[in-house]
C-alpha cells in the first residue's frame, strides 16, 4: 500500500460507518489509516480488531484499498515482534501440524462414528507435513513468530 494512495482519503468516514467492529471497539478505521501515513501505528491494538470483512474497502468512494492497508500494517507490526499470544499459538499449530486448527481425539472418534476415516490432509500424510515445515523454514516464518 503506497502512502500516496492513502493520502487521497478525504475523511468522509464511510469506512468507519461501515465497520462492524468499530460499532463495539475502539477501532476507528478512518483514523488508524490516516495516522499510518504520518506515524508508526504498530503498537495500536486496534489493528487486530478488524475482521477483514472488506466493507470499508468496498464502500470507499476514493477506491482506497483500506482492508489491504490494514493487512500491510499488521505485517509491519508482526516484523517488529508485535504478535498477540493467541495468534502466535495458531502460527505454532501450523508449523507443528500443517493446520491452524489441528484435529483432536474427540473429533477423531466422531469421524469414526460417522463413517469418515482420517482426513486426507497432511494429518494423514507425514511427507506432506514435512514439505510444510521445509516451506515455513524457507520463508523465515518460524523465525518471524519466535518469541
Amino acid at each position, binding site marked *: 500500500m503506497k502512502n500516496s494512495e492513502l493520502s487521497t482519503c478525504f475523511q468522509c468516514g464511510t469506512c468507519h460507518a461501515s465497520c*462492524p*467492529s468499530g*460499532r*463495539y471497539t475502539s477501532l476507528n478505521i478512518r483514523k488508524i489509516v490516516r495516522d499510518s501515513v504520518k506515524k508508526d501505528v504498530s503498537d495500536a491494538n486496534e489493528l*487486530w*480488531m*478488524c*475482521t*477483514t*470483512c*472488506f*466493507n470499508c*474497502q*468496498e464502500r470507499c468512494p476514493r477506491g482506497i484499498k483500506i*482492508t489491504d492497508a490494514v*493487512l500491510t500494517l*499488521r*505485517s509491519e507490526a*508482526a516484523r517488529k515482534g508485535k*504478535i*498477540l499470544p*493467541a*495468534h502466535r*499459538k*495458531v*502460527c505454532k499449530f*501450523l508449523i507443528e501440524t*500443517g*493446520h*491452524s*486448527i*489441528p*484435529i*483432536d481425539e474427540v*473429533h477423531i472418534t*466422531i*469421524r469414526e462414528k*460417522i*463413517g*469418515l476415516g482420517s*482426513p*486426507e*490432509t*497432511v*494429518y*494423514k*500424510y507425514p*511427507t*506432506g*507435513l514435512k*514439505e*510444510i515445515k*521445509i*516451506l515455513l523454514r*524457507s*520463508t*523465515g*516464518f518460524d523465525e*518471524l*513468530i519466535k518469541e
Partner: protein
Amino acid sequence: MKDISLFLGCLIPNRYPGIEKATKLILERLGIKWSELKEASCCPAPGIFRSFDKITWLTIASRNLVIAEEKNTDILTICNGCFSSLMDANCILKNDSHIRNDVNAHLKKINKEFIGTIEVRHIIEFLYKEIGPHDLSKFIEKPLEINVAVHYGCHLLKPTKERKLGGFECPVFFDELVEATGAKSVQYESKTSCCGAGGGVRSAMLETSYKMTEYKLERIKKAGVDCIVDACPFCHLQYDSGQVELARSGAVYDIPVVHYTQLLGLALGYSPEDVGLHLNKIKSKPFLEKIARTQKTSHVAYLK
C-alpha cells in the same frame, strides 16, 4: 470445466466433520465427479497468515494449488476462508510474475512449481453456475417447509472485484440455491454483515467477536426463522458456539446453524444424523421436529 478436488481445510475435517460428510453425500447424489486433495494443509487461514507475512501465506497456499495442478483438477472449497486464501493466492500468483518467482523459489525446495492452470471454486457459486437453482430443484426429494436466514459470509462475496459474483450489498444467488430446496429465505436487517469471527478477532478477542455475532443473532431472531444457513465453517462455529456463550449471560437464541451442504442433504432425503446436524452445539428440538414432519419420518431420536 475440469474435474474437482475437494479441499477440506481445517475446521471442517477437524471440528465439523458432519459438513464434510454432507458435502460428500450431495456431490455423489448430484453426480459431480470429485476426488480428495490428498496431502493438502491449512489454506492457510487468511485472517492470521495473510496478516503476518504475505509470502508465507502465498507459499503455503501455492503448495495446495500445485497439488491440484499436478492432478489437473480445479479446487472446490466449502469454506469462505479457504476460498478467500486459495482464490486470492491463485489470482496473485497468476498475474504477478515477480511474486510468482519468489514463491516458486521456495516451492523448488520441495520440487514443486506453480504454473497457474487451475481455478478455485466455492460450493455455493459452483452449484449456482454449474447446475443452477432450476435444475437443482429437480433433484429435491423432500422439499423443506422451513424459513431460514441466509448468511453469505464476507469472503464469499468480497473483495467483489476478485470474486466476480456481483455486488455485495444485496446478493441473491445463495438465496436462490436455498429456495431450490423448498425452504424460504427470509430477509432480515444487516443480512450481509460480518459474523464477527474473521481477521483473527475470534482467536485473540473472543468477547469482542461475540458482540458482532449477537448483533446478527438479534436481527435473525426478529425475522422469526427456523435456522441459519451458512456457507462457511468459521461463520458456522461463530454462530453455534456463540449462542452457547451468550446463553451463559442470559441471552438465549436457540437458533440451529446449518451449512448449505447439510440443508441440501436434508432436501435430498438424508436424515439430520446423515448430514451431521447432531454434531452442532445448538440442538433445537422444534427445528428437528419440523424437519421430521417435512421428511415425514422421525429423526429426533438422538435428542432423547
